[in-house]
């Protein structure tokens, strides 16, 4: 490896991808400076709990830190929080910062992630107590507004994972919660009709109103709270509104560096962008998945961490570094743990296996005979076995898999 003592690696973005990349760089032998910038002033924390356990935890509870503070000192990782990067001058290898200064880099890592998409609904910008859910500040704002509201009427705009998790958490805190979903089913973009039906039933049984085919057109203030208007002329009162309708990838900096963009920042198998000195990792990347042989963009912790490690190796001069991971994901809602492994996008047949315990089942997605993905609901065994089968490209006996009289063991299905 080339000596890196006098070189600086700058990372933009201090969430899962950026922070894991910094520590991975040290592990792989990067000797020079490592500087991370993020406009979020909060010490780097785990994001997934924000809509789940954090929201229902005691007020004032500290965030779960990605790494303890001492580790940054030990590894000489410089955190520059509360500072925005304004632009990248790729030819000069310099970034300009919101505090008026500049920073030179030898290698640059973009872990710029995404921001919540706020739909152009009349009155949404001026309405009080309307929040996205992505950062610690968002979670704190939601909690504060919720606690301060005399009536606890919550409206969630968007029935995706973030919306449903937030709905479940606020319901646990005693809110009156309705979810307004534009499509005809919740989770329409990310899962199958069967899974959507399960989560709709789960929420309804727990007292959450799930309202589909609802396009919000306008938000108007009331003396107490807001009135949310839909295109079918229905209206809903809400003290707190959470918007979870998807994200927009942060590509402004990549654009300033003239990087190739395609549904995100286009990267190679080693997470290199179209500029050899600039890498990109995490939610902001459009990358190739070896297993599924397709280009994708993924919003997940798994992708953030795995790409962080790949980029660190490549930056440290290792050759033939290739991102080759099977995606995984989880969601916690009420007493349900959903675990997903793989990408079900191209499936053409589905096996559902129901366990004896209530609300415990798994869905196995196949394209012809190839197992693509498994959704496991309160049944971690299926998640673990599915992972093993997918990685090994194991042929699975679907008839046996669907037969619950056959014990759930690896050898039962192969």
């Amino acid at each position: 490896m080339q000596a890196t003592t006098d070189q600086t690696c700058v990372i933009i973005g201090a969430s899962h991808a950026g922070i894991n990349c910094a520590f991975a760089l040290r592990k792989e032998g990067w000797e020079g400076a490592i500087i991370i910038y993020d406009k979020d002033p909060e010490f780097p924390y785990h994001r997934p709990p924000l809509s789940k356990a954090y929201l229902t935890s005691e007020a004032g509870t500290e965030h779960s830190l990605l790494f303890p503070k001492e580790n940054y000192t030990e590894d000489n990782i410089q955190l520059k929080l509360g500072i925005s990067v304004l632009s990248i001058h790729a030819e000069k290898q310099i970034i300009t910062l919101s505090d008026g200064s500049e920073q030179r880099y030898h290698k640059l890592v973009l872990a710029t992630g995404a921001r919540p998409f706020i739909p152009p609904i009349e009155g949404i910008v001026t309405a009080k107590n309307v929040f996205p859910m992505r950062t610690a500040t968002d979670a704190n704002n939601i909690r504060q507004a919720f606690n301060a509201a005399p009536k606890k009427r919550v409206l969630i705009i968007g029935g995706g994972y973030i919306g449903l998790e937030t709905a479940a958490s606020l319901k646990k805190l005693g809110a009156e919660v309705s979810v307004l979903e534009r499509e005809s089913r919740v989770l329409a973009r990310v899962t199958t009709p069967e899974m959507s039906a399960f989560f709709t039933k789960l929420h309804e049984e727990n007292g959450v109103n799930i309202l589909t085919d609802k396009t919000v057109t306008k938000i108007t203030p009331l003396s107490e709270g807001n009135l949310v208007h839909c295109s079918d002329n229905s209206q809903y009162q809400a003290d707190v509104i959470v918007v979870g309708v998807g994200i927009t990838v942060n590509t402004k900096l990549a654009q300033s560096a003239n990087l190739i963009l395609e549904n995100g920042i286009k990267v190679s198998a080693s997470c290199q962008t179209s500029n050899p000195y600039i890498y990109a990792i995490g939610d902001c990347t459009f990358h190739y998945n070896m297993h599924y042989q397709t280009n994708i963009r993924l919003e997940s912790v798994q992708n953030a961490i795995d790409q962080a490690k790949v980029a660190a190796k490549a930056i440290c001069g290792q050759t033939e570094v290739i991102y080759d991971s099977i995606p995984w994901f989880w969601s916690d809602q009420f007493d349900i743990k959903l675990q997903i492994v793989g990408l079900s996008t191209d499936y053409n047949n589905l096996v559902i296996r129901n366990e004896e315990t209530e609300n415990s089942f798994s869905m196995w997605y196949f394209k012809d005979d190839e197992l693509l993905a498994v959704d496991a609901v309160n049944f971690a065994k299926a998640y673990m076995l599915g992972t093993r089968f997918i990685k090994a490209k194991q042929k699975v006996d679907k008839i046996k898999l669907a037969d619950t009289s056959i014990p759930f063991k690896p050898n039962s299905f192969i």
Partner: protein
Amino acid sequence: MKTITFITSENDIIETQANSGSLMELAVKNKVKGIDGDCGGVCSCATCHVHVNQEFWNAVGGPSALESDMLEFDDNVSDYSRLSCQMQVSEVPDGLVLKVAK
């Protein structure tokens, strides 16, 4: 303050000390190779798998139902497997020795 020792799959011995938190957090803090804790400690990823030294097994206790389901089909599962994110420093014996699963 308790002393907890991790032995990596490359047989590096890492002695750590702590009062609180999970053993996964302790391992991450001390850069124990093979313990990642990618999901942040919610028993969702199985990247913090350890084998408890046999002599401590009774004092430590076995896994919960969810944890046990996560472990059952792991390639390197043993009779003494646990996920270290589900083990609290406050609840394990002083002097505990853990081997990191491959």
